[in-house]
């Protein structure tokens, strides 16, 4: 069993009004030290796989096929083995 923590973020060059809205309200709230904000999706997938490589290749495929839109989004992930739960 592995836990994949997947980040889906907008590609550079794609306008991100949500990030702007958050940055604006942070600054209104007095968080003036904030320099930049980006917003994306966080998707956690628990999956069974024999090896970390196998898990990684399946998660990459999920990302390509479904979780991210290649026109506007990038994705990256980290894998953690889950002990004793298989």
């Amino acid at each position, binding site marked *: 069993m592995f836990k994949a923590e997947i980040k889906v973020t907008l590609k550079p060059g*794609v*306008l991100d*009004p*949500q990030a702007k809205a958050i940055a604006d309200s942070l600054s209104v709230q007095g968080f003036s030290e904030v320099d930049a904000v980006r917003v994306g999706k966080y998707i956690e997938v628990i999956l069974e796989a024999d090896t970390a490589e196998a898990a990684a290749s399946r998660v990459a495929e999920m990302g390509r096929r479904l*979780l991210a839109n290649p*026109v*506007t989004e990038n994705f990256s992930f980290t894998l953690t083995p889950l002990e004793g739960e298989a």
Partner: protein
Amino acid sequence: MKVAILVFPGTGGEQDCHYVLTEVFGLEAELVWHTETDLRRFDALILPGGASYGDYLRPGALAKFSPVMGSVIKAADSGTPILGIGNGFQILLEAGLLPGAMLVNESLLFYCGPQKVEVVKDRTPFTRGIAPGTLLDLPIAHGAGNYFIDEAGLAHLEANEQIVFRYAGSNPNGSVGAIAGVCNAAGNVVGLMPHPERAVEALLGSEDGQQIFKALINYWEAKK
């Protein structure tokens, strides 16, 4: 002419389209559930608006894996006229049948209201006979209609004349180039965010949407 109206789980606009095709234009139309895998008996396909799969993940993203999509792709390749309206447009984008992608509206808010839309291209089955530059009153209602394509893609779209509709007057959602609708390279697959089916009766405020359906009928008559 027999038209298929595709219904995915969560689709909401199928009855509107069915009403317009059958009651207003007297055409033959059938609601087709997304598990259907053979669309060869239809002469045109409509993917209506709504929120297929609850618009979860990204609007249209989950619908592209519905069983019916294989035959939609086949129909697209064989030149069948296909129209995606609102969520239907989003599905065609996600499925790669149309170029580009949708982002949430720049305002981050859902937007419903009347909208002026300019017809840019008349060489599609759904705009045939509408002079480019014609302004139509077509309502919009969407939360993610902010069309995006990168610069190279946009240049390509323009060079290939694949922009079919643009917002006129104001850009309600932040779309690149105020693009409201595009077609594929062959021109038979068209997607747009505005709702022509909601603008076919004076009682509801505009009849301009009729032109889109009449274009399809003309196209069909000419082809016969």
